């Protein structure tokens, strides 16, 4: 059989184009970007050799720890929010809306496919303070409070970003976790119920341990996305007020294109890549142990 499906020419013909495009447009630029970390300048102004200046600049740059911290804070808060809300919804789908759930699932999933920019502009107007009071501030005022200028202070701006990102993506995590919960056999829950276990007890002792693998893959998925988040923040706050909501992705973009420094931009991009790799490895090592314990 080996010879029948092992024709080298066919392999080259079928795999070649994809591999070529992928290598030229993603792998080569990745290495190229590493090379840029030793230069300053841009494609417009020209490049000059900088040695390790970019790396020493990285260590002295006060904006970098701020961006790094925001990236981590954002990733942790949004990931926890997305997965928790998604898990709550998935439990609701499985144990409450079993039959009528499909319409609710379709509706809640819809924001997932909406363009981030459209959602960001919508939320900007939804939380608007002036000149036109948005529904959120209108509701606060109707309840007797005073409206909040959400985008003017770091704390409230971050809150709106978090709410928006959770709103957009909860349907996705709900469906992902729902699929995992469906695999838990009904008989198990019935048996527990007959033994006198209440709903919370059933969730804690049966549902939670059995859905751990799919919870972990949701976490990986979410962290991977939130560390690289760019669109939502760029469109909603532009990184402001000041640079209070500027993650590494946006800082890299501003450095490269607003200030035309490709070398330092690439150094920031490298920092982000290293962060992503470290987190990925950390999660995989941690979860292998956890999952081994479950099985």
């Amino acid at each position, binding site marked *: *059989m080996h010879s*029948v*499906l*092992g*024709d*080298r020419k*066919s392999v080259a013909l*079928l*795999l070649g*184009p*994809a*591999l070529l495009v*992928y290598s*030229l*447009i*993603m*792998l*080569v*630029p*990745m290495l190229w970007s590493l090379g*840029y970390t030793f230069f300053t300048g841009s*494609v*417009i102004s020209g490049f000059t050799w900088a040695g390790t200046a970019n790396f020493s600049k990285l260590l002295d740059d006060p904006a970098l720890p701020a961006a790094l911290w925001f990236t981590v804070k954002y990733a942790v808060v949004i990931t926890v929010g997305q997965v928790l809300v998604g898990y709550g919804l998935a439990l*609701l789908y499985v144990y*409450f*809306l079993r039959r009528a759930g499909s319409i*609710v699932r379709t*509706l*809640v999933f819809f924001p997932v*496919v*909406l363009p981030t*920019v*459209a959602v960001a*502009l*919508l939320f900007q*107007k*939804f939380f608007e303070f002036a*000149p*036109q*009071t*948005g*529904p959120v501030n*209108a509701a606060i005022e109707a309840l007797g409070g005073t409206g909040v200028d959400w985008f003017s202070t770091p704390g409230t701006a971050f809150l709106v970003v978090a709410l928006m990102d959770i*709103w957009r993506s909860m*349907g996705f995590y709900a469906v992902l976790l729902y699929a995992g919960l469906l695999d838990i056999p009904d008989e198990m829950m019935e048996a527990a119920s007959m033994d006198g276990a209440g709903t919370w007890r059933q969730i804690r002792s049966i549902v939670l341990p059995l859905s751990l693998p799919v919870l972990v893959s949701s976490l990986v998925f979410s962290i991977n996305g939130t560390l*690289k988040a*760019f*669109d939502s923040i*760029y*469109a909603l706050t532009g990184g402001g007020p000041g640079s209070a909501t500027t993650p590494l*992705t946006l800082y*890299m*973009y501003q450095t490269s294109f607003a200030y035309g420094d*490709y070398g330092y931009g*690439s150094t920031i*991009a490298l920092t*982000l890549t290293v962060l*992503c*790799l470290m987190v*990925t490895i950390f999660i995989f090592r941690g979860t292998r142990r956890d999952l081994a314990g479950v099985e």
Partner: protein
Amino acid sequence: MRTLKKIPGYLCVALLLIVVTYPLIWLFIGSFKTQDEFLNNPTTSLPESFTNFGNYTQAWSSVAIYLQNSLLTVLPSLALIVVLGTAAGFALEVLVWRGRQTTLMLFLAGIMIPGQMILLPLFTIYFNLHLTGTLWPLIITYTATGLPLTVFMMATYFRAIPKTVFEAAAMDGASVIRSFVSIGFPMMRNSVLTIALVQFFFLWNDLLIALTFTTDDAQRTVQVGLLNFTGQFGVVEYGPTFAAICINVLLVLVIYVFLNQRVMRGLAAGAVKG
């Protein structure tokens, strides 16, 4: 008693539906308001008429070109992603050769690379090839960034098909290429549609790549165009801005509903036949 116990659950569902739909309903209502209604009436008020499409015609006059640009970049990229990705998935999973595993891992690595890492070298390449100012940088970059996930998913789908199918075809004298074109690819019809759908939303919603490689208004895609829409008239013209966001949302809604059904039907048909 049983119905009484369900009340908190129903309240949760009601609250959920309000949270999900209210911002969108509010957006839709706003797209029919005049500037005057925006500034002088409470934000939750209804517009005087739902048949005044003035906001929409004004929004459409600038959004149409952005939509055209988005279609002209996303559709060719999707076609390339699907064809190249399926062929590569077939070569990686069905065919027997050394280095398959390594190549698969190489593609897998691409899923984890942040887009920021490849932006600057690509900009240099496109600039030196005089491609900036055209839509080519977007088509090329979209195709490359869509490939890793597609190749990986297609390889997984091909794993489920018994290799004997292709071995039998080879015994009957079909070349490997021939059996891919007339057996492998058609078999993957529904998976291809699913992947194309997922990739469509990825590419349609992209901001980073489009923002980086489009230098003037004539090449803007719908996301970049929308972003620049707010400031376009000097003062914020709420009505047209709302209408422009609405056009984008409605378009995606149509594709979501239509293709979602199609994919579901396709999957069901495949299951019955199998």
